[in-house]
């Protein structure tokens, strides 16, 4: 773990440059460029509001768009990071085969580029907040607590899937399906209170359950963090990171032979 911190610090410039490179490539050749990072959540909000207020209002909540976005933004970060992370080693095979480079920079860069996206998408969220006259809760100051736990969980996943995908390319395909399913079993488009009591236990096995809850409390409800919830976030986060990094480290010297 100390090694992880030390290497992250040592290669910070490289990680940052790779993350920016990824963003540049993502938005290259589009007229609006980086604006898409802001526009995407806006357009999504329009769709959500339309669908859930007119077509299926039964699970709707007041200011439903904000209700959903408060968890959808962290979810998008999580899902995108994992897909990018899983491809990060295989996709950089060219590099790994020709230059000596610390392998951990690739899953890290996948995380950082999506983190930039997440932070950018807070801007349209604020605009929407103002537009819908939803109160701006002071509990936003607790967001970093939830965000850090989310980062730990995501980073662990990135490491794990990046390594696994080197050996079995099927992983990234399977991951896509799993993420889809995962989306629906996480309280994003519905409230966690809607989960029938007898199934609660299963939903609580999902690490994202706690993290997303934390985001919703701070942004939408304006309530203080639930400390047991925070605790669960960090237990999941640390477990994810330790397992993910352990697996990654164990196999990183062999990546070059399999990519």
């Amino acid at each position, binding site marked *: 773990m100390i090694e992880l911190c030390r290497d992250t610090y040592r290669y910070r*410039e*490289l990680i940052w*440059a*790779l993350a920016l*490179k990824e963003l*540049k*490539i993502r938005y*290259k050749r589009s007229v609006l460029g980086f604006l898409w990072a802001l526009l995407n959540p806006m357009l999504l909000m329009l769709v959500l509001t339309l669908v859930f207020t007119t077509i299926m209002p039964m699970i709707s909540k007041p200011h439903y768009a904000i209700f959903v976005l408060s968890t959808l933004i962290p979810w998008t970060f999580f899902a995108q990071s994992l897909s990018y992370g899983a491809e990060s080693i295989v996709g950089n095979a*060219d*590099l*790994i*085969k*020709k*230059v*000596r*480079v610390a392998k951990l920079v690739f899953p890290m860069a996948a995380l950082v580029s999506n983190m930039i996206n997440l932070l950018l998408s807070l801007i349209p969220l604020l605009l929407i907040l103002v537009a819908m006259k939803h109160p701006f809760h002071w509990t936003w100051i607790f967001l970093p607590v939830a965000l850090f736990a989310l980062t730990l969980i995501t980073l662990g996943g990135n490491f794990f899937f990046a390594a696994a995908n*080197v*050996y*079995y*390319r*099927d992983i990234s395909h399977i991951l896509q399906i799993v993420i889809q399913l995962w989306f629906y079993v996480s309280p994003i488009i519905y409230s966690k209170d809607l989960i029938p009591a007898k199934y609660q236990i299963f939903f609580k096995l999902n690490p994202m359950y706690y993290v997303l809850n934390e985001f919703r409390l701070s942004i939408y409800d304006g309530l203080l963090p639930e400390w047991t919830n925070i605790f669960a976030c960090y237990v999941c986060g640390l477990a994810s990171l330790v397992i993910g990094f352990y697996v990654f480290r164990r196999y990183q*010297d062999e990546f*070059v*032979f*399999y990519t």
Partner: protein
Amino acid sequence: MMDSPVVIRVENVTQRFRVIHERPDSVRELFSKFFRKKVKYHDFEAVKDASLSVRSGEVVGIIGRNGSGKSTLLKVIAGVYRPSAGCVTVTGTIAPLIELGAGMHPELTGRENILINGLLMGFSKQEMLRREQAIIDFADIGEFIEAPIKQYSSGMFMRLAFAVATEVNPDILIMDEVLAVGDFEFQAKCFDRLRRFRESGKTILIVTHSMAQIEEICSRAVFLDHGRILADGAPAEVAAMYLKSGIGEHAEPILVEAPSARA
């Protein structure tokens, strides 16, 4: 030069590869283990029990036929592969030019690639920004420096890659047949720079098929065959030995000045 310090020490290095014959990297492989169907592969030793010490200030040319393990040996020294057996100790910074434009992204501009490339080699951003102008001047590709490098010709590509690798002032420069691409004018510029590199006491490892290059700039040559070091010594003698080794196995002798052998 005999008393200058050893900067590269390769001791009994063997590099083994698993060559998988069909359908690698898939869950099928996993299933096939359950069904006891063996995945076909063979182990291949690209470098066998090689030992080599290079002192600072030496220019070592590595020669041998295609598939003799030259590039693998360079990659082991550059730290791309961890050897299956034996160990490698390197003192000082390395700029590897293993292949043209490794670490260059086609969508990014030349300028952006300079930074990424330098960071990948382990140099700091500050250092790269300081050297940026010198790199651009040496590469001499004009306006193209602001264009995505996918639009470069292979010559421009090579100019930029060579400029980055040599301008960062590494202690050790590793080159794998990269010089063949440039035009004669740029090649002359490269050789001039290599000569100055050598004079300032830096170490160069170079793989080439041009015996003229070997005899012109190298102070020592190593002949690899089937992963083994067969000869190590004065360039002219080793080159002669290499050329002679082809006769007898082939109907006609190998050309002295082989044209660019890059695949």
